[in-house]
């Protein structure tokens, strides 16, 4: 009867944050103070660099900071939204970003220089010039970033609930690193150009490192390492040997991808060759890691959807809504569909309903043992009550016979609040004549849209490349 065991339980179990977990408890942990002190030291070091850069190149430095800060915004939202159902606390996301941007970069500046020098001393300056970045970057930087993910696990173990959480924190550590490193590169490019406080080298660095090289950079490496460390944290059913082995392998995997990216191997270099290098070295790991992220997302979604399904209450979520809630593109499709049928108010109501359903699923998981049957709720089934039962609004679907009052009670007051929110949004949708947050069946043309997207991506890359050539980047 393996069909009754959720996929998430078999390959990527979710450990919900216990209801008794309190964020303030982190203050009692040594790891919290270690992270605080190291982040403060990193901030001082990066601050000194920024101060010196402002003194020498005020306009270029400000431009670099603004450009790369703006660049980080969509990445941040994308990464944070990876875990739609169980959002991570913003403070922890910011901590991960700060570790990458302040601590990991500060460690890497010193460590990388030392590895470069040691390589030159032990071998030759030529070998160090060719292979220094390939050896120093992956070893020092990946370890420095992985420490940040481990620190998050130590500071807020209860918040790392799944492998996907590891991916999210790892990606944000990588993003912080990427942004600060790019600002440093941009200011260095201004200094090397030797033409004073000019923004052209900053723009060239932004296009090159932000767009052409940005998609398959530290954020990606961090995601892979984060997946392994997330596995280490949540697979408590496995042996320590297995968990540590997976974590080490994932960090090694990030190192290997970083090594290939930095190494002169398979490099055509210069002009059009750089495009071939970018795609040859960048696309395979990008696809590989996106597939990995997709897998762990779906497994986590299985778990939370099963929480809602176990209620068996179609006013909370219909079978179709459960299917849709698990997938980002279907959620977006449902909102668009509501917009088409009920205008902006319909779209907003669906968005709020989905949000409330997700929050309710998380709250249920915090107060209940994992459900054994992940099957969608039967339409009109009696179901299981959430918290203390309240009479449903008069304009929603009728209460099933023998419904809420006789059902076992799950979740705490927060679950009750989110259940009520779901019911309010359901009532709103009913009033709008769009009772179910469903999406229309997939239309033909998916492949066409994919191909158009890929073509658009390549066209954008080509445009960035042309802009770089126009700026005289070498």
């Amino acid at each position, binding site marked *: 009867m393996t069909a009754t065991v959720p996929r998430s339980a078999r390959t990527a179990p979710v450990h919900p944050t216990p209801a008794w977990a309190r964020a303030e408890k982190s203050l009692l*942990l040594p790891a919290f103070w270690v992270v605080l002190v190291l982040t403060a030291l990193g901030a001082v070091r990066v601050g000194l660099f920024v101060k010196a850069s402002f003194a020498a190149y005020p306009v270029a430095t400000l431009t670099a900071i603004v450009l790369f800060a703006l660049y980080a915004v969509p990445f941040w939202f994308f990464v944070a939204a990876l875990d739609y159902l169980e959002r991570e606390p913003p403070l922890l996301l910011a901590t991960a970003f700060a570790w990458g941007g302040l601590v990991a970069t500060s460690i*890497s500046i*010193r*460590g990388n220089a*030392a*590895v470069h020098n040691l390589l030159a001393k032990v071998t030759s*300056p030529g070998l160090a010039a060719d292979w220094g970045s390939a050896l120093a970057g992956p070893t*020092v930087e990946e370890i420095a970033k992985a420490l940040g993910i481990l620190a998050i696990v130590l500071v807020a173990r209860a918040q790392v609930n799944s492998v996907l959480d590891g991916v999210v924190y790892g990606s944000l550590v990588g993003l912080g690193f990427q942004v600060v490193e790019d600002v440093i590169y941009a200011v260095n490019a201004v200094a090397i150009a030797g033409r004073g406080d000019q923004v052209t080298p900053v723009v060239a660095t932004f296009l090159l490192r932000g767009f052409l090289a940005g998609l398959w950079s530290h954020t990606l490496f961090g995601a892979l390492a984060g997946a392994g460390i997330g596995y280490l944290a949540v697979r408590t059913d496995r042996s320590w040997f297995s968990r540590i082995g997976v974590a080490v392998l994932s960090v090694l995997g990030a190192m290997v991808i970083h090594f290939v990216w930095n190494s002169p191997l398979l490099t055509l270099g210069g002009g059009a060759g750089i495009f071939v290098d970018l795609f040859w070295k960048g696309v395979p790991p990008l696809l590989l890691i996106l597939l990995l992220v997709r897998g762990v997302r779906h497994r986590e979604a299985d778990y939370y959807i099963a929480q809602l399904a176990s209620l068996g209450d179609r006013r909370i979520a219909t079978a179709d809504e459960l299917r849709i809630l698990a997938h980002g593109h279907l959620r977006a499709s449902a909102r668009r569909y509501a917009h088409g049928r009920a205008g902006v108010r319909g779209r907003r109501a669906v968005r709020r309903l989905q949000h409330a359903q997700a929050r309710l699923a998380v709250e249920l998981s915090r107060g209940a043992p994992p459900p054994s049957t992940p099957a969608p709720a039967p339409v009109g089934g009696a179901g299981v009550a959430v918290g203390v039962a309240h009479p449903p609004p008069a304009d929603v679907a009728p209460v099933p016979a023998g419904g809420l009052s006789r059902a076992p009670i799950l979740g705490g007051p927060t679950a009750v609040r989110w259940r009520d929110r779901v019911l309010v949004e359901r009532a709103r949708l009913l009033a709008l004549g769009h009772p179910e947050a469903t999406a229309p069946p997939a239309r033909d043309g998916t492949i066409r849209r994919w191909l158009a997207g890929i073509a658009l991506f390549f066209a954008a890359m080509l445009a960035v490349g042309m802009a770089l050539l126009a700026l005289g980047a*070498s």
Partner: protein
Amino acid sequence: MRVARGTLLRNLAGSIGIVCTVAGLAVGLPLLDEALPATRPVDPGPYAVGGGVTVTPPPGSRVDVTLTRPGETRGTAVFLVGSVRYVIVVTPFTGSLDSAAERLRRKITAVRGHELTGKEFPVTTATGLSGLQGAYAAPGRGGRYLVFRGGEVAVEVTVAGADPQLRAALAAIETSTGTLTLSGAA
């Protein structure tokens, strides 16, 4: 609000592990680096700086391998003639000799306390590379700079040291700069 003793100990162990690894990367590696000498004697004969440029270093000079970075399209070589630093930087450049000289002057004066002294005058290497030469000064130190243009690169040379040592090394360094060669340059 309490934390279980076992949790606290595990957390402490993990924290110590993180601090030790950070220290190893940020302090240990640099200490190991400092323990090994950065300079080594240069073999006699032409030395490839990068970007197709070669130079014959002064006899008895040493190369700082930590700052020397040869490359296909660019490169840096840092030699030590006694205590005098002799640096050659090759970068891709398509502008004029004057603009290359302007760029180098700007780099020099961007360093606090550095200022240009005297006038620039033209120089030519034994291999026919034409360039400009000038002088600069910093507190307690003197310096010379040369800049050449050829092919798709600019070659920047800076020489700096305490005045007595600089005067003593200058002849050998001028002989060396005369050997600057750009492969493929007219």
